[in-house]
């Protein structure tokens, strides 16, 4: 699954070929839920409504070693309770940092999307539900 933001691809390539130093991302990383598909060039349209904080929820990942994949969220699942009064329809998620203008790193579309979350229901991202790898 193509999964890396195109601008981030360029940053990685430029940083690892000594063209431009990599600018450190702003902790913590966040996961944003979107109602439309995310692509390498643009994030999906972020969902709105009571129960969802614009900008997304903090997500932590494991540490990569010897080229291994990282997974998140760590520790506990992330829950969003739809209190908007109308259904959420989710297509994708985007991973960003916490900068004032967030920098997007990774993205992915849900298998089985769109995911319908009726009013009052909870959308849960399980522990280690997101696996990120370079190969």
């Amino acid at each position, binding site marked *: *699954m193509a999964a890396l933001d195109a601008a981030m691809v360029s940053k990685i390539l430029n940083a690892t070929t000594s063209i431009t130093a990599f600018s450190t991302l702003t902790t913590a990383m966040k996961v944003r839920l979107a109602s439309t598909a995310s692509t390498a060039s643009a994030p999906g349209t972020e969902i709105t409504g009571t129960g969802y904080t614009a900008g997304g929820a903090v997500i932590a990942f494991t540490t990569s070693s010897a080229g291994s994949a990282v997974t998140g969220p760590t520790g506990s699942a992330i829950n969003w309770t739809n209190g908007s009064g109308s259904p959420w329809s989710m297509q994708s998620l985007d991973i960003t940092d916490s900068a004032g203008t967030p920098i997007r790193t990774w993205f*992915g579309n849900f298998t089985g999307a769109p995911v319908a979350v009726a009013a009052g229901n*909870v959308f849960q991202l*399980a522990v280690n539900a997101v696996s990120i790898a370079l190969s």
Partner: protein
Amino acid sequence: MNPVAPVVGWQVLDPDGNVVDSGPPMALQAVLGFGHLPPVPAIDPFAHVPLLGANTKEG
């Protein structure tokens, strides 16, 4: 035979905590590679060997 529990990536729960929908974990993967190396020019092993009899004058 031991049953293998499905690995759940995301799920939708109703207010009573019942699972009403679920999906697998998301595997986000970028592939590294050298996809566009420039072509290597072909080398003619006889490029600098004069052809026998070529560019010679007789008598």
